[in-house]
């Protein structure tokens, strides 16, 4: 069982031009995630959500503090679903799946097929990405991330580039797959409603990358957007979210007045 530990994590981007101030993306962030839970990180744009995922996956380094994923004694395996599909355009869907799977031969192929089937794309293995719609490409991206059988699955606003209808059906599909496979998921989004529908726990970040709230979502699954409980919780959380934005706006005005 994977343990994710974020300990006093800070990330500051240096000033690009002379005279401009360095920007803080993540500010003294601490939380732990244990077990097979679905955790969402919600926050307005520019609050360092994607930076957090990049640090976890090793694409970026932290300025101070640490973010570690451990799985017993061996190094943890990570899966990543990006905003855009990020498939190799010159390789077929199957070859794209095999690209990230660390097994080889028939075993790898069987595994790839199993996860393609889960996203409803069995039989699309021989297609090139360009022959699929945007939604289907994103489904390949999801299947690919699950296929590495990760200890921690990172998802970076995976539905934000899709139209509302496609996004809704993919959200339901993601719920199904997750219930079947039970991975530890860290799901980044700016959409509070989406977070409530999918998560067991929601971490709300304030602008500047500070922890604002840590909320348990204890609702039965499978959840639909139309469920009363889900809708109530969404409204409640959206209310807190708006309060937070009002507070930061007020703080900003105050600092300008001073």
């Amino acid at each position: 069982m994977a343990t994710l530990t974020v300990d006093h994590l800070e990330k500051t981007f240096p000033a690009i031009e002379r005279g401009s101030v360095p920007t803080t993306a993540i500010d003294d962030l601490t939380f732990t995630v244990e077990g097979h839970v679905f955790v969402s990180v919600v926050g307005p744009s520019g609050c360092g959500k994607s930076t957090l995922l990049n640090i976890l996956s090793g694409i970026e380094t932290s300025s101070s503090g640490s973010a570690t994923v451990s799985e017993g004694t061996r190094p943890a395996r990570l899966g990543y679903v990006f905003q855009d599909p990020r498939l190799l355009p010159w390789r077929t869907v199957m070859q794209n799946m095999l690209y990230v799977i660390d097994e080889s031969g028939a075993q790898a192929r069987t595994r790839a097929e199993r996860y393609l089937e889960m996203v409803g794309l069995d039989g699309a293995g021989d297609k090139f990405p360009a022959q699929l719609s945007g939604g289907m490409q994103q489904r390949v991206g999801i299947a690919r991330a699950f296929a590495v059988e990760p200890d921690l699955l990172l998802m970076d606003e995976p539905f934000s580039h899709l139209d509302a209808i496609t996004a809704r059906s993919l959200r339901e599909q993601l719920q199904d797959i997750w219930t079947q496979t039970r991975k530890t998921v860290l799901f980044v989004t700016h959409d509070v409603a989406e977070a409530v529908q999918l998560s067991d726990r929601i971490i709300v970040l304030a602008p500047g990358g500070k922890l604002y709230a840590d909320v348990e979502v204890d609702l039965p699954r499978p959840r639909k957007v139309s469920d009363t409980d889900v809708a109530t919780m969404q409204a409640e959380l959206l209310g807190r979210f708006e309060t937070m934005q009002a507070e930061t706006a007020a703080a900003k005005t105050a600092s300008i007045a001073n």
Partner: protein
Amino acid sequence: MSIAVERTRTAGSSGGGAADVLRRFVRSDRFARAASYVFLLLLWWLASVYEDRFPAPLETFQFLWVEVTGGSHGGVVRGEFLEHFASTLPRFGLGIAISMVLGIAVGVVIGGSKWAEALFKDTLLVLLALPAIIWAFLTQMWFGLGDDAVVITTFLSAFPFVAVNVVQGIQAIPRELRRMSRAFHVPRYKRLRHMQVPAVTGYIFAGFRFAVIVGWNAVLLSEWFSSSEGVGWRSRYWYDANRYRGFLAWVILFIGFIVLLDRLVLVRLQRRAFRWRDAQASAIEREAEEIDIGVKGA
């Protein structure tokens, strides 16, 4: 929409008759290409009329025919076309093959690391700038007559073009794909095979094409100086013998060879390598057709 388009099309074709057919023929690509050949032949013929030492097209082609099929040039020599191509082509092929393998390897290394780029980039530029004739002379001094000098001249002339193109290709790989590969910890050889090489295929082709043209140039030049057989040597033979139509006949032969190689081999390879892109094009076409059918049905 589509009905209106069809109507204008029928109106256009029924009105013109023979004149219209002729106009369409003149405007076709095939006609334009044929016209350019005719024009060049005409220029050549005019040049031979005004300058005695410039052989006329007809006598040149007659000479060429004898070189290809056998026979004699006023009792001089039998046809030796195959023999000379047979000694040039392996040298050419080997030189190109070495320059492709090393060019891709060096290109991948330089393209993948800033440090390697700083180390090699200027050297590569110098190599690019060196004309084949320098290598032809140097290798003649180093290796004397024979295959070595010719193969190495071909390789040295073609190699930098391959390497430079591969460097550009590697540097053009989208950052998103590189990050994706890193996030999934994809091993190095898999990245090379499935991300870097396919991404640079277009650039490799551009490099290969340059290599073939530059290399062909170099092989002929080097044979002129360092060989006693081969296509380059044969053109020199006729040149030294003051038989300009023989010289020109061989020029036509090696131009013809490079054109055929380009049309028959390179174009086909290219089509195969870009299947993924064509798949995209045909998918878009299919979608367009579906929309069209939808409009007609409505």
